[in-house]
Every structure is written in C-alpha cells, then in structure tokens.
C-alpha cells in the first residue's frame, strides 16, 4: 500500500514548501541553542578545511625551494608547517564530529517526539478521519515521512551551512592567492555543475518513468499472483504473460536509460575536475614560470578546485533533500494539526451501575453534511431486552450502534441511557458501559491471555479460562503448547471463526452492563454459534444487548427485531410477529424455503 502511494507520489515533482519547513523549525525550537552551536561548529570545521591548502602551499614552497639550497629543505620549516597542519586537521576532526554528534542527537530526539505525538494523535482523532484516510497513508506518515525528515534534514542542515562557509571561504582564499586561476577554477566548476544539472533533469524523467513502470508491474503481478486460481482455471496465463512482458520491456528501457544518465553525471564530474586540474597546471606554469613557489600555488589550487566542487554538489543535494523533507513535514503536520475530539474534562456526571434503558429520540445523522443516513430514528428499549437490527447492506445498522457508542456525534435528536443523554457524560464513560464486539476481529501481537485481558485490571486466570470455556475454545487452546500463554502470530493460523471467538471472550472478560454485537459471529459456523449464544445468554441475562447480523438464525431469538432500510425502521417486532406480518422481513426469511 505504502509502496503504491510512493510510486504515485514520485511521479509528481515535489515543490519546496517553506511553510512546512518553518513549522518543523518551530517544532524543534527547544533545540535552537544546540542547533546554533552545531552551526558554529560547522563553520569552524569549514574554516579548518579552507586554511589547510594555504599551509600546504607554504609547505610546498619550502620543499621546492630546498632543491636549490645547498643545505636542502629547511626541516624546521617543514616541521612547523606540518605540525600546524596536524593541529588544523585535528581541530577539524573534533569540530566536525562534535557537529555530527549534536545534529544526530537532535534529529533522533525530534523524530522520537514526532512519533510520540503522532501516536497520541491517532488516539485523539475523531473516527471519521479514519473513514476518509486509508491506513496506508497514516502508516506511511509514521514510518516513511518521519524517517525522511530525520535523515534528510539532519544531514542537509549542517551540510548547507558548512557548504556556504566553504563556498565563501574557498572563493576568498582563491582570489587572495591568484585571481586568474580563481576565475578558471570557478568557471570550469560552474560549467560542470550546469552540465550535470542538465543531465540530472533528463535522468529524473526516466527515473519517474521507471517508478511508474514499477508501480504498474507491482499492480500486475499482485493481480496475477493473488488470483492465481482464476488465471489457472480460466486459462489466462498466456495473456497475463504478454502483459507482463510488455511492462518488463518498458522497465528494461527506462532502467538502462536512467542508469546510463546517472553514470554520465558521475563521469562528467570527474571529467570536469580533470580539466580544471589540467588548466590549473598549464596556465599556472605559464603564468608563474619565474616564481619559486609556483608548485605550491598550483598544488593548493588543485585542492581548492576539489573543495569548491564539494559545496556545489551539496547545494544541489540539500535542495532536493529540503524538497523531500518539506513534503514529508507537510504530511506530518497535516496529520498533527487535524481537529481533535472535543475536550470533555468539564463533564462531571458519571453513569455507573446502570439498569439499561436506552432511548433513541428522533436521531438524525450523516457522515457528511450533504448526505443524511439516519433520518429521525426512534426506539425505546427496555432494560434487559435483546435487540436485533437487521436490514440490507448500507441500511445504516452499524451506524446506529456507532452513534450509541458515541464514535460519531449525532446531528440532532438525542440518545439516552437510563434517562441521561450520552452527550452529558464523557466518551470514556459511554465506552465503559458497553461491551462491543465487531465483525473485523482485531487481535494484537501478544499472548492469548494478554489479548483477552487487554487493558482490564486485576483479572485472574480463572476469569480468562471461564471466558474461553464459554466461547467453546478451551479444547483448541489446550492443544496449544503453551495454552493461554501462546503468542498469537501468523504461524498460529487461527481461522476467522476462532478469532471471532477470541474477541467475544475478550468482551466477556471486560463484563460491561450493555452489549453490542456487530456481525460478531458471522464467520463462526452455526453449530458453534449456538454454543456461544448459550454462553452469551448466560452473560446477557438482565443486560440490554444489541445484535446486528445478516444471518437470520443468529437473531431469531431476539426480543425485538428492528428491520432497518435506508436509515429508517420499516418494521419491528419479534420473529413470529414479523413473519405473520408478511412484510420485508418475512420475504427475506422465507426465500430460504423456496423450492425449485
């Protein structure tokens, strides 16, 4: 999923978004003193790098002049220059390491904070955020975007500053030494820079095409591999292979084109540095043929030329890093700045030990303002009743229980539990009143016991075992090598039905006064379901419970069946009375007995 998004995203060129970068800087402002310190260190390191060649020049001077002196090279001078250089290099080492250390530390702490904030945010967002955003998108923010920020930004921030220092410093030193050679060096380097920039844009085109090809290929093989049975039975193999080969050929072409261009970029940089070396030598010698320390000047310029090309390429690199980082931080802050659930710390009413009367009073609701789904839903549910909600897909069954749980806020009307509006108590309080079991079984990495206890406190093994017994899993779990302490993993290979049994057991452990079952037994076979239902009946005795199921055998025993279509109750009553009515419910139910 994330891979897919990535390939789509890279097709477009990411723009540098200064606002997003600004937010990032504000976010990490607590580290500002350290960042400034790191920048100072970076500049210091650059200065060390710049004055190095100047000392090399002096060293070369004293060596070359030694050729003509009878006493040879003045070793005192050599030692002096050498030691100076050693000190400069050592200081450079310390400064640049200190800078790396500080920036690395800041980066890690910042990305940790980002991850923590995102994880907190996920728990504080209203549920409709998750309806409109895919899981892959949010996940890619946690993993990819935070990583991109930490990797690109830490390097490029420090790089950029030291590059600027290096850039300015090298220009100053070159002009101080010789303006003609300086102009040649700068000119040739610039030329090379422009050339590689041109190649880079060209190769970018092929890289993007390559990414698109890869996306296509991924899509195709995912289709073919997952639908292997269909391809095989319906004889589509040859056809699919042709499509694959077509994409494969495109990929081949874009692959080698993008590769040769990036190779050319690298080689043209070497070529340019060779050319500038040659020019420095030839021009240098013709200009300085009488100067004793010509060689020193030339050697120092060769180092300058190398140093000069460094900031140029790191400018280009920082630019693209900043682009990536700004795009990533835009996505991160987009998530972090989403509206959160309304704060409820001022609510003082607490519902406890409830009896279980539930009233839906003219409830209106739509996931978006334009499209209302529930149009004035009314129901008066007495304590201890077993309520079933049935109806075609999209009728709004799940929406009704979602509103009851206050996963969404209703647009108008009211829902009351024991006469208290659920708006007047906190969401946490509402959640505490309910055991909710959903169709999508959600189990996490951990032991069976951990999954059943979840966040409940002080639960004995006895309670856990009783719940397992009740859902009919005790035989299965006793066959596992570590019983309830067995870790859930892919290799355990639980069937969908077994997972549903576990989530029901989890609800039994929580033991709340109200119960919601949303297609909770849809994957359990009907004989096992009866075992669970008997256990449930024990559990639900005296408790108000809400059951949604499209398998009618699941809900036949309900006290009240609400038949819902298009957000309205169109029929209600128990199984027998609804059959007598010969309406919508009876029609669906009786289609089981049509003889043909």
């Amino acid at each position, binding site marked *: 999923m994330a891979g897919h998004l990535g390939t789509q995203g890279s097709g477009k060129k990411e723009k540098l978004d200064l606002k997003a970068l600004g937010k990032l800087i504000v976010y990490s402002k607590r580290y500002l003193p350290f960042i400034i310190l790191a920048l100072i260190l970076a500049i210091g390191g650059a200065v060390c790098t710049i004055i190095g060649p100047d000392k090399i020049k002096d060293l070369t001077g004293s060596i070359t002049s030694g050729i003509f002196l009878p006493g040879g090279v003045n070793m005192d001078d050599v030692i002096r220059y*050498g030691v100076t250089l050693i000190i400069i290099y050592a200081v450079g080492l310390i400064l640049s390491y200190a800078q790396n250390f500080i920036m*690395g530390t800041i980066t890690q702490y910042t990305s940790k904070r980002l991850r923590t904030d995102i994880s907190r945010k996920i728990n504080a967002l209203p*549920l409709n955020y998750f309806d409109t955003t895919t899981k892959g998108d949010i996940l890619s923010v946690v993993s990819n975007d935070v990583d991109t920020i930490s990797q690109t930004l830490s390097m490029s921030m420090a790089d950029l500053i030291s590059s600027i220092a290096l850039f300015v410093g090298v220009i100053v030193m070159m002009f101080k030494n010789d303006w003609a050679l300086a102009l040649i060096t700068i000119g040739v380097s610039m030329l090379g820079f422009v050339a590689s920039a041109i190649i880079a844009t060209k190769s970018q085109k092929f890289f993007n095409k390559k990414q698109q090809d890869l996306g296509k290929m991924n899509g195709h093989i995912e289709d073919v591999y997952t639908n292997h049975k269909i391809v*095989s039975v319906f004889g589509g193999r040859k056809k699919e292979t042709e499509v694959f080969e077509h994409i494969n050929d495109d990929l081949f*072409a874009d692959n080698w084109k993008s590769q040769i261009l990036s*190779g050319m970029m690298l080689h043209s940089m070497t070529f340019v540095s060779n050319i500038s070396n040659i020019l420095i030598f030839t021009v240098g010698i*013709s200009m300085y043929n009488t100067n004793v320390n010509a*060689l020193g000047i030339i050697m120092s310029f060769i180092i300058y030329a190398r140093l000069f090309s460094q900031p140029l390429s790191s400018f280009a690199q920082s630019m693209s890093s900043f682009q990536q980082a700004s795009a990533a931080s835009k996505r991160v802050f987009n998530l972090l700045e989403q509206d959160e659930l309304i704060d409820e710390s001022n609510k003082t009413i607490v519902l406890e030990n409830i009896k279980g009367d539930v009233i839906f009073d003219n409830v209106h609701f739509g996931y978006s303002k334009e499209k209302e789904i529930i149009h004035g839903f009314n129901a008066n549910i007495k304590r201890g009743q077993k309520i079933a909600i049935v109806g075609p897909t999209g009728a709004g069954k799940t929406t009704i229980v979602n509103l009851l749980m206050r996963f969404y806020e209703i647009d108008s009307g009211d829902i009351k539990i024991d006469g208290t509006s659920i708006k007047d108590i906190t969401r946490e309080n509402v959640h505490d009143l309910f055991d909710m079991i959903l169709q999508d079984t959600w189990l996490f990495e951990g032991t069976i016991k951990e999954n059943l206890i979840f966040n409940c406190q002080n639960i004995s093994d006895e309670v856990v075992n009783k719940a397992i017994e009740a859902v009919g899993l005790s035989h299965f779990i006793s066959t596992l090598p570590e019983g309830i302490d067995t870790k859930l993993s892919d290799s355990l290979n639980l069937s969908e039905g077994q997972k549903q049994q576990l989530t029901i057991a989890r609800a039994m452990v929580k033991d709340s006064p109200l119960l919601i079952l949303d297609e909770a037994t849809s994957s359990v076979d009907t004989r096992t379901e009866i075992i669970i239902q008997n256990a449930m009946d024990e559990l639900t005795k005296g408790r108000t419970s809400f059951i949604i199921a499209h398998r009618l055998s699941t809900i036949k025993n309900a006290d009240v069946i609400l038949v819902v279509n298009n957000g309205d109750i169109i029929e209600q009553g128990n199984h027998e009375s609804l059959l007598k009515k010969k309406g919508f419910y009876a029609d669906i139910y009786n289609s089981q007995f049509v003889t043909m």
Partner: protein
Amino acid sequence: MIKIFKNFQKKDIFFVLICIGLIVLEVWLDLLMPDYTKNLTAILTAPGEKNISEVWVNGGHMFACAVGSFCAAVATAFFSSQIAANFSRTLRTRLFDKIESFSDAEINRFTVPSLITRTTNDVAQMQMLIAMGMQAMIKAPILAIWAICKISGTSIMWTSAVLIIIGSMLVFIGIIIAICYPKFKKIQRLTDDLNNKARENISGVRVIRAYNAEDYQRNKFESVNDEITRNNLFTSRVMGSLMPLLTLCMNALTLSIYWIAAILINNKSGMPERAQVVEDMTAFTQYSMQVVMAFMMLLMIFIIMPRALVSSKRINEVLDTTPSIVYPKEDKGVSFKGEIEFKNVDFNYPDSKVACLKNISFKVKPGETFAIIGATGCGKTSIINLIPRFYDVTSGEVLIDGVNVKDLSKNELEKTISLAPQKAILFKGDIKSNVGYGPNNDVDIDRVNDALSISESSFIKDLEKGIDSEVAQGGTNFSGGQKQRLSIARAVYKKSKIIIFDDSFSALDYKTDMLVRKNIKEKITDSSIIIVAQRIGTIRNADQIMVIDNGQVVGLGTHKELLNKCKVYKEIALSQLKEEEL
C-alpha cells in the same frame, strides 16, 4: 550468489568482456595523467627559462587522456547499464514464468506478498549490485594493482605511508561497521515492530476506543519508540565519526607524502635528483588518491553485497522450486459431459502430517447439482481444490468422465471446469473484462449481460458506465456482495461442463441467494454444479448433499434423506431453522 549469474545471457557476457576492455583503457588513461603532471613539474622545477610550448604539449596530452578516459567511462556506463537492465529483465521473466507454473502448494508456501517482493525488490537489489558493483568490482582491483605497481618503484617510505593510511582507513571502517552492524539489524527489526504497533493502533481504533485502551496501546508504542531511539542515537553517534575520520586520513596522506618528500630531498645531494623527488611527489599524490579511490569503491561493494546476497538467495529459492503439479502435454480427446467421481480419496496438505480428507467417495452425474456442507475448516474447500488440480490427491482417484484428472492436459482441464472461489477476487480493468476473463481479450457482450443477469448483478445498471465501469486493483471499489456476484457471473460466463461455487453465496442476502440459484437452475441446464455452502437454505434443493465432518463423509443424500439419517446434518439444520421449517 554465483549461481544466479548463470542467468546471464550470451549477449550479457559479451558485454561484460567489452566492459573489462573499456575499463582497462580507462584506468590506463587515468594513470597516464600523473606522468604528464610529473613532466610539467619537471619543467617547473628546472632552473632557468621555462619551455612554455612544452607545457602546452603536455597539457594537450593530458587533455586527450581526460577526454579518452571520459569516453571510455561513458561507453562502460552504456554497456554496464545494458547488462544490469537486461539481467534484471531476464530474472523477472524467469521468476514470473516459474511462479505461473506453481500450484497452490508452492504459492502458499512462499506466500503472495513474498513472491511479489521477490519479483520486484529482490531483483532490483541484484540490478543495483550489477549497476553499481560490477564496474567497481572490475575497476577497483585493476586500478589498485596498477597504481601500486606504478608507485612502488619510487620510494619505500611513500609506499608504506600509503599502505599504512589505507590500512588505518580500513580498520576505522571495519570497527565502525562491526559496532553498528548488529545495531542496524536490530533497528530493522524494531522498525518493523514500530510499524506493527502503529498499524495495530489504526486498524483497531474502534476496539481500542470501545475499551478506553488508548493509554495501554500508547505505552506499547512508546516502549518500542524508546528502544528504537536509543539504538538510533548510538549508531548515529558512531557513524557520525566516519566521514571526519576519512577526511583526516586523506589529509594525513597528503601531509605525509610532502613530509617524506622533504626528508628524501635532504638525503639527495644533486639538484637534478632533488628535482626528481618533487616531480615524483606530485605524481605520487595523484596516484595515491587513485589507490584510495579504488579502495573506497571496493568498500561500497561490501555495503551493497550483504543485501544482494540475501536477495539472490531468495530469487534462487523460487527458481529452484519444481512445481508439484505437471500436466500431460497431449489432449486426451474426450468429449466431456461433466461427470465427476471421487474414488477413496485421501488428502493431506504438503508439509502436514495430519490427514485433511479421509476416504472421500462420491459421484456427480452430468447436469446434477451437488452440494457440500459442513463446519468451517472441515475440508470442504480441500475437496473441490482437487478437481481442477490445485492440489493432487495423496491417494485415491479423481475422475472426470471416467478419466483421471492427472491424465488430462491443462487445456482440457481449463475448458471443462469453471470456478467461483471462496474469496471473490477481481482484476484491475473493467467489469466486462472481469466477467469475460479468458485466454484472450475478446469478450462476448451478450454473454456478459446474460451472466450478469443470472448473478442478479443489477447494481451495474446504476453505474454510469455500466459494464465498462472501472474495477480498481483488488476490486476495492465494490462491496463484498457485489464482488461475489461478479465472481459468480464470471464462473457462469465460461459455459463449462463443470461449475464450482465455493461458498459463493454466503455473502449474499437470503433473497438474492435464492434468486441467483433459481436463475442458474433455469438457465444452465447442461452443466454439473457443485456448491459449497454453510446455509441450509442454499443447498436444500440440491440433487445430492454431502455432509463433511473432520475430513470425512458423514452423510450423502437429499435434504429429506439426510434429515432422517444424518445426525450432523440435522444438528446444522436445527442450528439455523426450526424443526417445523425443515
């Protein structure tokens, strides 16, 4: 690793040879340049008037070398990119072909996501190894040896200085990698962990809120976050020393060459010899840089190598697997009527010792509707998997019109059997191409419409583009019930003698379920139909019903017969309907 390069084609090998030639040329030219620098230095250090024209001649030669080296390098880049891209294309084709020949057993063993990564990412790793590594692998040793040969004659002190510096660079890098590598592996694992925890939080958001377990989940996330940060901090601090240390080594190399030059000059008395030292010094500086470069290149290979090794192993695993099911090439030449017979079939899944099916025997007459019912996991799907040979029986026989399925060609099996699988799956494309899926792209529109009406897919009429409506990857733009109906339509479109519906009706509501079955009954008269189901209502009208419990047949007959004689069937029925409704 070496084994995977057997996938090189003749052309690739020829290109590799060309690359070697070009690289030798490039290295020769690169190493020629310092010689001219030496000449230039000689001119410079020579006393008296300088011969300027000679400077330009030398400069010209150097320029020619630079241009030549550049051309050789670009040509190498061309050939190596061809090799890398072609190699990866070959690997992908072979993988795809191989995987297409797999049966379910092999696919399930590798799992689909893993096969996808093997076809794409792992191949990309190999391509990167060749693209970046091959040149380096050829060039680095040539360059290093050649350059060392060139400098070794000049002075032992210089040579040993170079070797010492390179040695210490390697030691630094080695130590840093040795310290960080285990941590990197750990970080990789922790990153997966972190992603899992985040995924868990998002996919379980409703459950977590229903249980007020936000803090519980956050604590789990934070403990991984803490650990990953601790490890990241450690590696970033250690890795942060790498570049400064390498810079120090390079600087130290230059300085020591100069310093040694000073000592060497003082050991010589004559002016020409002394000048010679300076000439050597300039040349040596350049040569030594080349040697250092060569070692850096080798280092890069060692960075890519571990991942490429893993990838090549993963690719070979797929390529070395022999498909467990092989079809006879020749058609048997039977005119099929659609009779199916199982004779004492036993079956266990590969790598599993537990028998999945035990002694299954039954016979479906042409045109009959045959239903299979039983609890989840009892082996219903395993039975029908044996008909189109997704798996082969462990013992016993599966016969179609009296012929063992193992003797039928792939083509004949394809023609005779149609299937709607348990999990409805759609291809990216449009509705038309999904329903009319087959060996080629010609789709009969009338037949598509017929098939859609049989499967009660009236929702298509509400779509703007009708049967030309787009189907997204994985069919995500359709609901479960809609996908199921399209999948039924596809099975019907094919007009095979045998049509299998594997639990295809359970996602439909009772009424649609009934209507679809009624349509099939009325419109498809000359095909044998096998229905796997959980609901009694779905199968009560079948000609024969087989009840499976724990992989064994516990009942076979009509609805009425089974109610009387089969206890399991009666239990299932009573769990869904009342006594009087049966």
